[in-house]
């Protein structure tokens, strides 16, 4: 069997001896890992795999004994190996990329529900079918989760064992030197007058100076460096696992909320006070941080001239807040890239608009409504905003109004529009309704839409109202006065306990990545023995020194040059010491400090000529 191994190993073009590989299996395996078929490590792969009896038989169908069957455990183990192989990781990475594509092209429910509704309207036949495939919630869908979970399982299954192996072998010395250094991808040899032990000591000293970890044996020296490569590689992959955990943390314990706040109003961070509340799986109302925020004033500045006229220049919201019920109030200037952080919760300014103030008197003459109503912008260039006023407690009839607020109203051929987003010429244009708003039935309604199915449109002259002007409703139903306007801001409240761990994991991943790219693992072997005889068969007193080099993967190239440099330095070091030694009184200097003696040099040219 050993002969078989040697032959096979040699046949693979690299040369690590069979038995030796079994003994040094740990050491080679520690760096072989999941890198495959790159010269030596690939062969070491094959060899140590063959040394492992059962899998040597099962793998690749090389020489599988007829009639052997894998039991359930065997199949599980085979499945696990397939899952944690590089090829599977490759396929899963691709699959995940492909699976993300529909999530970016189709509108997603969690990001833009309005766009989803539009898609349904535009593609009435296709949309339900896509919805059943989770096309509008790709990133929360089970099949997307399955892909990334498989990927992370594959990653964990590959990386965690290697991490433990690295931890165990971190302090271990390099493996023993192979017998025939000539089989390594990089090899060189020279002769020296120095005794073998001294030559090896000299080589070892040089390698130590080059920051190799050195181990000496009988007639050989083995050196290794670049351990940080594996550390960096594993740090990167483990950090990705940490990232996944952080995301899960946020999903379980974090929450998001939204609140639209008009100037002068206050809100408290409770489910009662939020417009939208999206808690993580394990979040309860009691786990919300109990802060309150008051919007004192909001201001927006726009570019008034030039090509970018009308584009926003700066927004600022002045807030007063406290972090618990009855606590001391603090001030904060909230801006778009400048969120408020209170108790670990972040409050962001994500939108703004106008809230015209209306006063509605009903048929009995009493004021039934007197408050600002947030209108939502329907276009950005002039901030034309649409909104709805509902007066459910007006008597004798409930009243409803729907229309637009125009910050800078202009008349474009009979149509109303707004020319500039600042309120330079604010006007409101409303359509009036009376009847049953539908709120008494208990069915929740959107505050931004008016259900006129049970209401009658009132005949009112359609002119836009300036601040202070009123609409008088017919039949003594009441009167609406547009008294002025205020600004509102839209706040996003987010709490994500996984945010900091995610950042730490991401940075660690980046560090690990850079480390693994910069550091290359290298092994150098030196053997020295008395030459015995030279090429011509005559007896020789010299020592033959062989140097071999091995790298884990040389995809980037460059190891050949590095090896050549190191080997030359070793030769110079050894010969230099030999020359120093031979400068003893009475000692004749041999041809050691010349270029390659005939022993090696001629044979190089001979070897080279033969190969040409």
């Amino acid at each position, binding site marked *: 069997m050993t002969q078989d191994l040697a032959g096979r190993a040699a046949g693979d073009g690299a040369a690590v001896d069979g038995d030796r590989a079994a003994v040094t299996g740990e050491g080679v395996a520690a760096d072989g890992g999941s890198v495959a078929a790159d010269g030596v490590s690939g062969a*070491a792969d094959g060899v140590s*795999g063959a040394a492992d009896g059962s899998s040597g038989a099962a793998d690749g169908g090389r020489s599988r004994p007829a009639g052997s069957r894998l039991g359930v455990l065997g199949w599980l183990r085979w499945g696990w190996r397939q899952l944690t192989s590089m090829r599977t990781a490759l396929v899963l990475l691709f699959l995940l990329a492909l699976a993300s594509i529909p999530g970016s092209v189709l509108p997603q429910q969690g990001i833009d529900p309005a766009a989803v509704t539009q898609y349904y309207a535009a593609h009435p036949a296709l949309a339900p079918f896509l919805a059943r495939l989770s096309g509008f919630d790709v990133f929360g869908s089970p099949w997307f989760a399955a892909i990334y979970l498989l990927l992370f399982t594959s990653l964990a299954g590959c990386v965690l064992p290697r991490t433990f192996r690295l931890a165990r072998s971190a302090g271990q010395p390099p493996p023993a030197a192979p017998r025939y250094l000539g089989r390594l991808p990089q090899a060189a040899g020279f002769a020296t007058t120095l005794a073998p032990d001294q030559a090896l000591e000299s080589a070892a000293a040089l390698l130590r100076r080059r920051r190799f970890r050195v181990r000496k044996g009988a007639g050989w020296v083995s050196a290794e460096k670049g351990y940080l490569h594996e550390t960096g590689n594993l740090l990167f992959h483990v950090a990705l696992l940490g990232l996944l955990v952080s995301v899960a943390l946020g999903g379980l314990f974090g929450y998001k909320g939204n609140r639209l706040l008009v100037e002068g109003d206050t809100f408290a961070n409770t489910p*009662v006070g939020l*417009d939208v509340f999206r808690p993580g799986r394990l979040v309860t109302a009691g786990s919300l941080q109990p802060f*309150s925020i008051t919007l004192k004033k909001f201001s927006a500045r726009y570019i008034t001239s030039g090509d970018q006229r009308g584009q926003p220049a700066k927004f600022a919201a002045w807030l007063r807040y406290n972090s618990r*019920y009855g606590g001391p109030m603090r001030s904060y200037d909230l801006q778009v890239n400048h969120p408020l952080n209170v108790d670990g919760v972040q409050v962001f300014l994500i939108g703004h608009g106008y809230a015209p103030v209306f006063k509605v008197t009903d048929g009995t003459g009493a004021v039934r409504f007197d408050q600002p109503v947030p209108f939502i912008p329907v276009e950005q260039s002039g901030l034309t905003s649409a909104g709805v006023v509902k007066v*459910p407690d007006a*008597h004798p009839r409930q009243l409803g109004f729907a229309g637009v607020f125009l910050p800078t109203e202009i008349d474009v051929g009979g149509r109303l529009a707004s020319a500039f987003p600042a309120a330079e010429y604010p006007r409101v244009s409303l359509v009036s309704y009376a009847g049953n708003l539908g709120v008494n039935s*208990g069915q929740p309604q959107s505050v931004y839409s008016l259900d006129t199915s049970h209401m009658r449109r009132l005949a009112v002259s359609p002119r836009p109202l300036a601040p202070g002007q009123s609409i008088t409703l017919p039949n003594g139903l009441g009167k609406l006065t547009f008294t002025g306007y205020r600004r509102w801001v839209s706040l996003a409240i987010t709490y994500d306990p996984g945010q900091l761990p995610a950042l730490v994991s991401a940075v660690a991943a980046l560090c690990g990545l850079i480390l693994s790219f910069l550091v290359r693992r290298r092994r150098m072997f030196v053997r020295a023995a008395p030459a015995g005889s030279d090429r011509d068969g005559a007896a020789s007193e010299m020592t033959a020194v062989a140097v071999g080099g091995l790298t884990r993967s040389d995809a980037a190239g460059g190891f050949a040059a590095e090896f050549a440099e190191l080997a030359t330095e070793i030769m110079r070091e050894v010969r230099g010491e030999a020359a120093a030694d031979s400068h003893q009184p009475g000692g004749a200097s041999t041809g050691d400090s010349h270029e390659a003696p005939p022993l090696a040099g001629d044979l190089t040219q001979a070897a080279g000529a033969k190969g040409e």
Partner: protein
Amino acid sequence: MTRLRSAASRAARPSGALRAVIAVAASLAVAGCAAGRIAQSTPASSGQSFVQGDYSSAYFSPGSRPKAPAVVGRTLGGGRLSLAADRGNVVVLNFWGSWCAPCRREAPALAALAAHFKSAPVRFVGDDVHDSSTAAVAFERTYSVGYPSLNDPGEQVALAFHGTVPPVAIPTTLLIDSSGHIAGRVVGEISYRGLLSLIDKVLARPR
């Protein structure tokens, strides 16, 4: 590479398998939370502008009732109201808004219950959140609400209940027993019978 792994995993088989189990278990746990949808307490269509809760009714037995905060505030009529001053009475605290459709539907039942318990040691108090006082007073007139409501546009009273049994949606009705401890909570629109029996229960076991 797979052959190498088998060599290594053979050498380290127990821990290799253990790692596998942990990894799979962890991934399943994550799948349980990540693969499903994040629970939302609002319907998908935005614009509701309030958080609606699924109906639930809870009663706390005397040993496990958290202490209610000492809430003081102004009523819609302008007067001053203190919950602590109601010590000795059962307080039914209802969080509502004039814009809130379920609150409008439960208003007649609440008014009727208030009338039912007029001569009992039960006080009904409202807390009007996220609302303007004009619209709230108009609501009170529409439904002939006979009990006072706190004017609470900034939800501060709701915030005061943080850490105890807070209101989690609009409407929410809290029951505070005569010793000032929270004895029950109804999330969502109340029913006459349901709230009646709950109040009776709290009256029966006051502390």
